[in-house]
C-alpha cells in the first residue's frame, strides 16, 4: 500500500465509510505498520476530541418561542426606520394641510371676475385655530413619545 492509497483508506476509515470487510482489512494493515497505526490513532483521537468539544445542540429553538432580544445594532436600525416612517408621515400630512398657493386655485375659464376674487378659500381659513404645520408638530411629538423604550420590568 503506497502513501496515496493509505491516505485514501484512512479518510474512509475515519469518515466511517468502509464496509466491514474493508475495515477489517485496513485494521489488519494497521496492525502490521506501527507508523500507520500511530497516525491513524492520532487522527481518530482528534476526531473524538472534536466531537467532545463541539456537541450538537440538544434542541433547536422555534422562531415563535421566547428568545432573547435581538442585538443592539438591529434594535437601533429598527428604531431609526420607525423614526423615518413617522417623520415622513408627519411631513406628508403637514404638506397636505399647507395653505394653497395662488397658482393652485382653480379659476373658471373665461370669467374675468374670478381673476380678482377667487371663489376658493385657502385651507387655513377653513380650519380656524389650527396653525400651519401644527399637525406636523403633533406628529413629531407623537413619534417622540412612541419611540421611548418600553420597560418590560414594570413602571417605576
Amino acid at each position, binding site marked *: 500500500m503506497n502513501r496515496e492509497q493509505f491516505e485514501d483508506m484512512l479518510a474512509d476509515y475515519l469518515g466511517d465509510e468502509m464496509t466491514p470487510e474493508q475495515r477489517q482489512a485496513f485494521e489488519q494493515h494497521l496492525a502490521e505498520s506501527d507508523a500507520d497505526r500511530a497516525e491513524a490513532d492520532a487522527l481518530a483521537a*482528534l476526531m473524538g476530541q472534536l466531537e467532545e468539544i463541539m456537541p450538537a445542540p440538544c434542541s433547536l429553538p422555534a422562531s415563535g418561542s421566547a428568545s432573547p432580544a435581538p442585538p443592539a445594532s438591529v434594535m437601533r436600525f429598527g428604531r431609526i426606520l420607525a423614526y423615518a416612517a413617522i417623520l415622513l408621515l408627519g411631513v406628508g400630512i403637514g404638506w397636505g394641510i399647507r395653505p394653497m398657493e395662488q397658482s393652485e386655485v382653480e379659476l373658471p375659464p373665461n370669467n374675468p371676475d374670478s381673476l380678482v376674487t377667487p371663489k376658493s378659500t385657502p385651507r387655513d381659513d377653513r380650519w380656524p385655530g389650527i396653525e400651519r404645520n401644527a399637525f406636523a408638530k403633533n406628529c413629531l411629538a407623537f413619534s417622540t413619545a412612541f419611540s421611548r423604550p418600553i420597560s418590560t420590568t414594570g413602571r417605576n
Partner: protein
Amino acid sequence: MSVEAFEHHRAQVYGWAFRLLQNHHDALDVTQDVFIKWWRLLAKGDSPANPPAWLRQVTVNQAIDALRKSAVRKEPIALEKSAVAEPTDLAHRESLCRLADALHHLTQRQRSVLTAKIFDGCTFANIAETMELSIPTVKSHYFRALQTLRAKLPDLRRES
C-alpha cells in the same frame, strides 16, 4: 422561500453555529447575521447554487470570526451551563477558541469538506457532488484538514 424551508434552514444554521460556539445567544446572533447576508445576496439578484452548502460555509466562517474576536477581546466566558464561569468552562472556551484559530488556517475547501463531514455526516460522494469535485479530491481535503488541525491542536481536550 416557504416558511417550512426557512425554518429548516434556520434550524440548520443555528445548529452549525452552536456546534462551534456552544452558546445559545452567540449562536442566535450568528444565525441572524447569516440570514442578513443571505437576504442581501438575494436582494442583489444573486442566489447560491447550493443554499445549504452556502449557508454552512458562511455560518462556519461567521462563527470562527466570532470566536476569534472574543478571544482577542478576552471576553468573559458565556457558556450555557451556568452564569458563573467555572474552570472547566474556561478550559472548554479556550479549546473552542484554539479550534477556531486552527480552522481559520484551513483552506476554504478543506473547511467546507470537514464541516460537511463532521457537522452533517455527509458522505464523501455527497460532498463531491455538492462541491463539484472528485471523491478522491474530497478525501484528500478531508485528510489534509485533519492533519492541519492535529498539528495546530496537539493537546486539544475538553477538561471534565
